[in-house]
């Protein structure tokens, strides 16, 4: 079966060049970087090189990079690590209502430990307003954590402006206030620079950048102390214990290098394919709603709600025809979880349930997009014809449902 992967926001295939770079560190150069002997030094040198490569990805110094097991751990270390250090100075966090479940989860855990969390709204465009951040800041706020780009709708938040605001407050005397940004999704679509962003902590994850799952990094601005979360061992300058995954770190380094080299070229290609995709959908499918600001968003992401139908049904239908996409909604026994991100845009449950994320990657081709444009309208149509909501909506038009149905076994 023909397969088209349009779920690069979930994870990406490993670039063959990245596989190539990491392979030697599995078998031959397998040392533990903490070992003093030759094998250890060889591994240490490789980790150091990768650290420089990852630091360059976001314009930091190598010793500001802490390697972790992924984006989730980076977020945990950033938020919990900073909050545990500053709890004596304040217990208030400002975040957005559309953060990734990891930041959301940590904030909820902190609430159970007597922290207060202000969750900023986003508006129909999926964007946080800097004025809202300003209004939410309190004298006891120690952390602002707002993601750089959202994983479901791809909107890019005004982090540089928030960074300037945070710095201003800090200079005005609120000296424990820091800015964290989750750049896990952003890293593959836009150039990052921690100084331009003005952030103190920034999370990235390798598997969104054509490197393997299981490794990530946290940028920690020089001078900032975090309470380590994974303790024991002297690795990562006491900031994160555990034997370094040398092969994954090397892979991450190479992927960071390639991303930096090829980012603009990739982004441009992907953006033009995404535009082709969206105009194709518009001309073939009625009753759709785009989710999130279409200008301020990542180049590879398109999130669309299809009225009258439900995301998982469409997802499975597309999957049966080889097209892999995702939906933010989940329906499980006794509870409906329409995507909280789409709900935060002010959409009703039906639209939130009918949202599908298409995320393109650096190797997505025009032919693949055209195939999806062939398959998608049919899948939507078939599901709509099964949908009582759709029937009601078109009822007045006296549509002869049975005869128009293309599915098998249908009688009038």
């Amino acid at each position: 079966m023909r397969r088209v992967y349009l779920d690069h926001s979930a994870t990406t295939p490993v670039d063959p060049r990245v596989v190539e770079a990491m392979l030697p560190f599995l078998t031959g150069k397998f040392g533990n970087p903490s070992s003093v002997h030759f094998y250890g030094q060889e591994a240490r040198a490789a980790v150091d090189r990768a650290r420089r490569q990852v630091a360059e990805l976001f314009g930091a110094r190598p010793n500001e990079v802490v390697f972790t097991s992924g984006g989730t751990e980076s977020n945990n270390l950033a938020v919990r690590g900073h909050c545990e250090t500053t709890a004596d100075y304040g217990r208030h966090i400002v975040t957005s209502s559309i953060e990734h479940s990891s930041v959301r989860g940590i904030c909820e855990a902190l609430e159970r430990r007597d922290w207060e969390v202000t969750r900023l709204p986003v508006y129909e465009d999926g964007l946080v307003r800097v004025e809202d951040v300003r209004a939410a800041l309190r004298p006891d706020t120690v952390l602002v954590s707002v993601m750089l780009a959202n994983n479901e709708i791809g909107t890019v938040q005004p982090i540089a402006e928030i960074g300037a605001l945070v710095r201003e407050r800090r200079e005005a005397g609120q000296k424990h206030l820091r800015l964290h940004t989750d750049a896990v999704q952003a890293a593959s679509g836009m150039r990052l620079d921690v100084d331009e962003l003005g952030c103190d902590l920034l999370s990235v994850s390798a598997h969104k950048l054509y490197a393997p799952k299981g490794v990530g990094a946290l940028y920690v601005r020089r001078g900032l102390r975090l309470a380590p979360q994974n303790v024991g061992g002297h690795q990562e300058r006491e900031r994160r214990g555990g034997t370094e995954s040398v092969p994954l770190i090397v892979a991450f380094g190479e992927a960071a290098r390639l991303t930096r080299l090829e980012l603009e070229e990739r982004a441009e290609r992907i953006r033009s394919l995404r535009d082709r995709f969206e105009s194709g959908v518009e001309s073939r499918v009625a009753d759709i709603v785009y989710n999130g600001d279409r200008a301020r968003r990542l180049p590879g992401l398109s999130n669309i709600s299809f009225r009258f139908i439900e995301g998982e049904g469409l997802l499975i239908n597309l999957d049966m025809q080889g097209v892999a996409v995702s939906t933010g909604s989940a329906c499980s026994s006794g509870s409906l979880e329409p995507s909280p991100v789409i709900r935060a845009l002010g959409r009703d449950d039906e639209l939130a349930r009918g949202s599908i994320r298409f995320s393109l990657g650096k190797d997505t081709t025009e032919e693949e997009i055209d195939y999806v444009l062939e398959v998608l309208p049919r899948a939507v149509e078939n599901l709509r014809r099964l949908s009582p909501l759709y029937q009601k909506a078109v009822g007045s038009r006296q549509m002869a449902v049975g005869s128009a149905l293309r599915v098998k076994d249908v009688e009038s």
Partner: protein
Amino acid sequence: MSVTYSDTFKEHLANPRNAGTLEGADAEAEQTNPVCGDRLRLALRVRGGRVESARFLAYGCPPTIACGSALAGMLEGMTLEEAARLTRSDITEAAGGLPPRKQHAAALAYETLQEALQQAEARP
């Protein structure tokens, strides 16, 4: 949040049996899951105490569609007594099985069937 579906299940989704509406139906039931919003509509034409035709419409997650398809498919040709004896697990089985967290879809189909049978029996 991952879920594995069987081939039978997928076949129901790819090619739903008995989808649509029915002119001059003897029963037209529609139930909504109040929690998650899933909806199932079932129409029956009954002749001589036997389901001659059954059609369904569904909005909701794939299990709801598969259960609608499975239910409508198995109903055709059954007597009303046979239909009344169907259980939730008969529907689940005909749909090719459901993951634990998706059992509510069979419940919805079962409720819709009960309503339809009541309507059919209430007919002269």
